[in-house]
């Protein structure tokens, strides 16, 4: 324990006294959060986003005019509840559910008159009515379609939802049963905050640990340590814990500091958030240790680290959602720990997910951490 603490303390001192690196570690994510928050603070998206449960092709048959409307992006969902949750948080402007039913013929529907604008505005008022409420009396004559097959959901406080509803009623809206949900908007800054923090943790953990150990090996410091009774496992754990402590400290500072300017959405438990981010950081550090376990070339290590970080940055959902991408892309993204960390933190922060709900991500991160750390320790060489 004495040896472990000695190495831990020395590494912490090295990090904290390297002012340029420390300032960069703090400033970069902070500036990104603040910069992106201002950049996207208007929230005026040019494209409306409509979720579709039941298949976009089905929607094209049922409501061809709606489906072919320009500037609307249709995103397919398998699970209705997931998609409804996104409408609640304004991540979708509207959700439509389309189900084929035996004997249905879209052409038979009779177009009704749209509801008066004042009625719909009242219906869309925040805090009014139940969470999910049918809007009746304005629909067409085909009862089976109205009640069971075609529905749409809008958030009562979403301006985009209101506008989409107006567009919809200009096309095949009469065929759909209106459902209303309520929920606070998740701003873009709330959505990308976990991504920014996650990316900063990824870079700091992978490069901060990987490069440092390669540098130690290259300049002979590891060889000097090898000449002492210090065991490799003590050394590796000290590196892991040091980076973990420092990255968590930096992340908390960035979060709290940014929160002073932008009040972030936090629906879930801070303890759950801490657990998930700690596991995510541990997993990244373990990967850094594994990469540095034998490498003596900073150039080679840099290449490997870039090869890992770029796909993670693009495919983990840090910058943009993978919803609507090919299934294989979404499956590929599951191999990256950053995907699991960001998904879990977003769920906790924005949707109020409990630990039990994000447990699959927690397990993946924990198992990956153990696997990479064990492998790194197994193949580690001082020289």
């Amino acid at each position: 324990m004495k040896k472990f603490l000695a190495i831990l303390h020395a590494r912490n001192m090295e990090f904290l006294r390297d002012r340029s690196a420390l300032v960069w570690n703090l400033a970069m994510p902070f500036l990104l959060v603040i910069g992106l928050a201002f950049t996207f603070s208007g929230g005026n998206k040019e494209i409306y986003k409509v979720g579709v449960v039941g298949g976009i092709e089905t929607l094209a048959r049922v409501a061809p005019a709606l489906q072919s409307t320009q500037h609307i992006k249709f995103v397919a969902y398998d699970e209705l509840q997931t998609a409804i949750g996104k409408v609640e948080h304004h991540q979708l402007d509207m959700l439509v559910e389309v189900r084929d039913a035996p004997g249905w013929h879209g052409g038979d529907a009779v177009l009704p008159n749209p509801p008066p604008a004042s009625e719909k505005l009242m219906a869309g008022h925040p805090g009014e009515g139940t969470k999910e409420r049918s809007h009746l009396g304005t629909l067409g004559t085909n009862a089976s379609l109205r009640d069971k097959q075609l529905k749409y959901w809008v958030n009562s406080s979403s301006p985009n939802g209101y506008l989409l509803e107006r567009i919809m009623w200009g096309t095949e809206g009469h065929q759909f049963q209106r459902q209303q949900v309520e929920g606070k908007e998740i701003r873009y800054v709330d959505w990308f905050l976990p991504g920014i923090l996650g990316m900063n943790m990824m870079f700091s953990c992978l490069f901060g640990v990987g490069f440092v150990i390669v540098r130690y090996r290259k300049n002979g410091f590891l060889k000097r340590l090898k000449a002492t009774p210090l065991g490799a496992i003590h050394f590796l754990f000290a590196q892991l814990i040091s980076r973990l402590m420092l990255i968590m400290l930096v992340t908390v500072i960035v979060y709290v500091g940014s929160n002073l300017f932008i009040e972030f959405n936090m629906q879930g438990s801070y303890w759950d958030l801490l657990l998930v981010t700690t596991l995510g950081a541990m997993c990244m550090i373990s990967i850094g240790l594994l990469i540095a376990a034998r490498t003596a070339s900073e150039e080679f290590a840099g290449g490997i680290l870039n090869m890992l970080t770029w796909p993670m940055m693009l495919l983990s959902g840090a910058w943009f959602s993978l919803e609507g991408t090919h299934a294989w892309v979404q499956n590929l993204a599951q191999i990256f720990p950053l995907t699991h960390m960001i998904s879990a933190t977003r769920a906790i922060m924005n949707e109020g997910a409990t630990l039990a709900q994000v447990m699959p991500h927690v397990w993946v991160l924990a198992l990956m951490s153990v696997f990479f750390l064990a492998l790194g320790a197994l193949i580690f060489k001082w020289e």
Partner: protein
Amino acid sequence: MPNNSSISMSPIISARQLVKHYPGVIAVDGVDLSIPQGICFGLLGPNGAGKTTTIEILEGIHLPTSGTVLYKGELLGSRYREEVGIQFQHTALQEFLTVRETLVLFERLYHRTIPIPELIELCSLADILNRDTRKLSGGQRQRLLLALALINDPDLIFLDEPTTGLDPQARRNFWDLVKLVKSRNKTIVLTTHYMEEAYALCDEIAIMDKGRIVSQGTPAQLLSQHFGDVIVQIPREDSGSKLHELGLGVVDAGDMLEIRTNRLHQTLQQLMENGVNLDRLRIRAWTLEDLFINVTGKTLKS
């Protein structure tokens, strides 16, 4: 000069038939060594002779391809790490730490340690304790590295070219430090490029070439084994024209002419009789540098 009063003849470390192969290279080719406790043992050799590889096998840093190393009669194990001190030729330290913090860091890696104040006194580190290790001069850095090698109060200390790159004054200061350490009955294994350093510090030396030990013994033994004579040096302009005709085996050595002889009195008599001016004559004993060239065919720095 060597002090043999505290030398024990039982080896503290010994090696049998050490061989180390690298792809396409035999770095160490059957080295046998036995180093008694309490001596300063010098391992000399030209670049590429295999001395660093040999010493790193003895240090336990590298494993030999074949052969064994015994420390106090046992194979190298965890006890060895606790009882050996090493100063590598090239070593980096943890950055952004002061000298004091670096000493504390290494102190915590061992069970048995010398009290840090004693170490500071021994290695004259008091003036630089709060200095960042990256800002030390060459001599200060070597003193710190020696302190780190001594921090566990080792019985056996390896010093791999510890004075390379130091100015003459810093080098001599370091020698004094090594002598002080040696006076504490420590065993020192030293590699060096400087023959005067080996002569000043070492009780016993081994000369390596092409992965093998080609000569081993005390400096005096080796010199007497290889050279039974002395060198008479006469400035070229004092020698007159007859010197080459006297059959004394005169050799050109720059501005001087040299005569090797094991019968000094007769040689000087012969020179005087033949009118050679002896006013600026010098008689030089053979040095380790001469020995080195003699046994390896190379200069030490080649």
